[in-house]
C-alpha cells in the first residue's frame, strides 16, 4: 500500500518536473513549421511528421529525394516537405498519413 502511494507521488513529481528537451531555437523551428503549413481552424486532415531515417542516411536522402522527385516529374505523393536537422531526416505528410504510409509514399517516389 505504501509503495503504491509513494510511486503515485513519484509519478506525479516526475510528470510535473519533466522538461521539454528542445532549445528555444529548436522549439521556434517546430512552431514555425506548424504555422507555415496550417491555417488556424483549418478543418483538414492532420499533417504528420515522421522521423524515418537515422543520420547516416541524411546526406544521401538530401541528394536522392529531390532528384527522384524531379525525375518523376510529378508531385511527391503525399510527402510535402523534407527536413534534415543534422541527426535525422524528417518527412512531413499533409494527408494524415501513418508513419508506415509516409514511408510507403517515400519508397514509391524513389523507386
Amino acid at each position, binding site marked *: *500500500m505504501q*509503495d*503504491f502511494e509513494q*510511486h*503515485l507521488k*513519484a*509519478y*506525479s513529481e*516526475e*510528470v*510535473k518536473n*519533466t*522538461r*521539454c*528537451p*528542445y532549445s*528555444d531555437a529548436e*522549439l*521556434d523551428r*517546430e*512552431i514555425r*513549421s*506548424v*504555422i507555415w*503549413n*496550417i491555417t*488556424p*481552424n*483549418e478543418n483538414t486532415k*492532420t*499533417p*504528420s*511528421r*515522421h*522521423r524515418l531515417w537515422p543520420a547516416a542516411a541524411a546526406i544521401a536522402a538530401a541528394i536522392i529525394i529531390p532528384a527522384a522527385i524531379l525525375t518523376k516529374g510529378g508531385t511527391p505523393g503525399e510527402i510535402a516537405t523534407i527536413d534534415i536537422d543534422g541527426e535525422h531526416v524528417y518527412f512531413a505528410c499533409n494527408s494524415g498519413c*501513418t*508513419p*508506415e504510409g509516409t514511408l510507403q509514399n517515400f519508397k514509391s517516389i524513389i523507386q
Partner: protein
Amino acid sequence: MELDERTFKELIHRHRDMIWSICKSYRLSEAWTTEDAFHEVLCDLWRGFGSFDKRSSERTWIFRVATNTMVSLTRKTSNQPTIQATEYQEPWYNGENYHDLVDMINATAEPDRTIIKAHVQGFSYAEIAKITGLTIGAVSMRLTRVLRKIRKQYNQK
C-alpha cells in the same frame, strides 16, 4: 510575424514542458517518437488557437487539446506494436513496480485516464471538470474510484 503567431509562439514556450510531459506519458506504436507526438499536438493547438475563447485558462485548454490529440493517436496506432514502459530508458521508469503503475494508468479507460493524468499534473477538480466536461462531483467520485481500482491491481501484483 502577425500578432496571433507571436501570441501562439509565446503560449507554446510558456507551456512546452507540460505539452512534452503529456506526449511522453502515452504509449504509442514504435513508429512514433515523442517528437512526432509533440509536433502533432502543436498542429492541433495551432489549428484550434483561433477558437480559444479564454473562458478556461490557457493551461487547461492546452491540456485538453494535447490530451485529445494523444488519445486519438493512441487509438489510431492501437493495432501497431507498442513500446512497453519497461523498454524505456528514461529516468521516469526506474523500478519494476513503478513500470506497473505507469502501465496501469495508461491501460485505464477514458475519461478516467485523463482524470488521473490531469490529477498528477496538479490540476484542481474544478479544472479537471472543465477539461473533461464532467461535474466536479463526478470528477471527485471517478478519481477516488479509479485510484482505488489501480491500488488494488497494484497490490495484487
